[in-house]
């Protein structure tokens, strides 16, 4: 049971949107798919869903090609949210679930459960256009997982949501993963990815620049952060051996170092400059890795 993307390439005329991307997601895993705008995430998703055929390469789900015959096993939340604005929430969800081969009665029961869980049971007979954007998002998520797919693809599931709703949707997605679903999702929010995913991959201009478990990715990045909180000017330490980068913070500074020896050096040097209130060696955040890999243009 796995999603397997092998050397998928998609060309539109002379433009290569996705270039030789390989990806393997095991059953029950949650995979974070990162990339700047226009990096080729949506095109990759569309190829996985069979909406677009790859120019070359193979994509399979459980060893089989993904076709409309397998559509009941797959759920999709597109980046551009799409629901019928004038249709009632329940009718709409039933319709979309039926298209994925879910019996009507079962769909209705599940819809009631989900609306209850998202604390919006009274929306069942409302038109979608009457709902706020955040609430439409909830309906959109329900539409993607109502029919209990074993592979769920979420393109930017949390964009435009307030923190309370983000938590609500996150826990729903985590529960769904626990029930055995394989999930691929993309996001611009690194903290969400860091919190939810086992594995990540980073896409840049159609090419896969990084892939693996979060721990491996961080380890292989080979850089750590040193955070120092103290009064006084720390910029003199920028030339210390092993320091790659320096950033002033409101109560001290953040150094990026290449190895742990540099941390000890920074500690002794900073103590000479004054009283150190706080000293910590931190793992690099995904955001830093992303920026380092994809470039400062995206931040």
């Amino acid at each position: 049971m796995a999603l397997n993307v092998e050397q998928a390439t998609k060309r539109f005329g002379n433009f290569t949107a996705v270039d030789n991307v390989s990806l393997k997601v095991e059953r029950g895993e949650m995979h974070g798919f990162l990339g700047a705008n226009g990096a080729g995430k949506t095109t990759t998703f569309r190829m996985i869903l069979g909406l677009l055929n790859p120019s070359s390469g193979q994509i399979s789900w459980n060893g089989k090609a993904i076709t409309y015959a397998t559509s009941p096993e797959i759920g999709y939340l597109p980046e551009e949210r799409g629901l019928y604005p004038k249709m009632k929430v329940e009718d709409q969800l039933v319709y979309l679930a039926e298209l994925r081969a879910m019996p009507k009665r079962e769909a209705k029961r599940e819809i009631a459960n989900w609306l209850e869980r998202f604390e919006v049971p009274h929306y069942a007979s409302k038109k979608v256009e009457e709902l706020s954007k955040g609430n439409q998002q909830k309906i959109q998520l329900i539409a993607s997982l109502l029919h209990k797919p074993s592979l769920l693809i979420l393109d930017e599931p949390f964009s435009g949501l307030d923190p309370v709703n983000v938590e609500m949707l996150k826990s729903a997605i985590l529960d769904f993963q626990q029930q055995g679903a394989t999930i691929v999702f993309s996001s611009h929010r690194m903290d969400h990815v860091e919190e939810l995913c086992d594995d990540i991959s980073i896409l840049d201009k159609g090419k896969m620049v990084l892939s693996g478990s979060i721990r491996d990715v961080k380890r292989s990045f080979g850089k750590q952060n040193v955070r120092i909180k103290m009064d006084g000017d720390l910029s003199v330490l920028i030339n210390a051996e092993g320091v790659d980068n320096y950033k002033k913070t409101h109560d001290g500074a953040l150094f990026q170092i290449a190895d742990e020896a540099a941390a000890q050096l920074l500690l002794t040097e900073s103590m000479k400059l004054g009283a150190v209130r706080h000293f910590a060696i931190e793992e690099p955040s995904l955001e830093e890795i992303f920026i380092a890999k994809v470039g400062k243009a995206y931040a």
Partner: protein
Amino acid sequence: MHSFWIIFKQAFLTKATTKSFIITTVIVCASFFLLANMSKILDVFQGEDEDHVLYIVDESGELAPRLQEQLQLADRDIQAVPTEQTEKELKEGIVADTVEAYLVLEQGEELTARYVTKSANELENGSNIEQAVQSLQTILTAEKLNLDNNQVEQLFAPALFEREAVSESSKSQEELSQARGLVYILIMLIYISVIYYPNMIAMEVATEKSSRVMEILISSVSPVKHMFAKIAGIGTLGILQMLAFGLSGFIAIKTAGTSMTEGIYSVFGFADVKISTFLFAVLFFLLGYFLYAVLAALLGSLVSRTEDVQQLMLPMMLLIIVASLIAFSGISVPEANFVTIASFIPFFAPLVMFLRVGMLDVPLWEPLLSIAIMLVTIGLLGWLGARVYRGGVLMYGSAQSLKDIRKAIALGNKK
């Protein structure tokens, strides 16, 4: 196949339950009843009219009753009343609206009459009175010449005048005028439905695209299935609506009690309706619908916003309008060359070939050939439409034009 029916049902029900659709259907059905009972309704209004009073200034005193005779013979509701009033008094009466009209009659060598009313627009009574005066004059002259009634009748016996067409394919003049009204109405219906229902489809597709629900739909079912299920759903809706129209029209005529072959209805030619005309109408309605529906779905799949639908539909609308122009102008000359040629051009055929089979006795192979051409065209368009649709529904951009068809095909391509 299951998902086909779900989309079919959805396309059908969402349209069938919209207020505008229900209201349109009800209004059209109601107007049939109104039309069928038109003569009764007219009677109600006319029944309350009193007879028109026409004052006669006649010095001899003999002419007024004889004019009245003529008016009654011609079945006019005008009372000729002799009066002693002077013309001056009568004119004042007209100005004061107490007198509707008066007639000054004088008998010299021949009859002279002067008809005076308030407004010159009042023509109908005027010409009726003129006819009555004319008849009176004839009778008076006949009396002068000592002709008896028989001789007068002979004098005015009408000539027999009949039209006959020699061409083999043409129906006799009588048949033609009977067919014309019905064919006209049916062409009108086909014309309206090949505009109305395909437009519905284009709007539906564009709405699904602009609300972005399309991406979810076509990740669940294939775009081709989605397109044809939609066309079938709206098509069924169209057939049912037309059936409702036809049925209410039929019931309206039956219950109206007036014979539809008389009076104003004789123009429509319901007297001698051939069942084959209706069968051809249904057939050409279906073919025309599918032809234009596939085209509309193709065009609808290219736009990103519903506002752009009309712009992209324009070429298709022009095709339909040209077809209707040929058909409507061909009603008076169904044998013209341009009509014959147009009846084999697939986009014109639904209207024009129907016109020909309705108006002429064309050999059967001609409509069959035309139908075959249309079926092939529908097949080709369906194939092309499916390819464009597959890519078109994924395409979002600002400016849409027909050039995008190539882009859409490239996007939907296998490789």
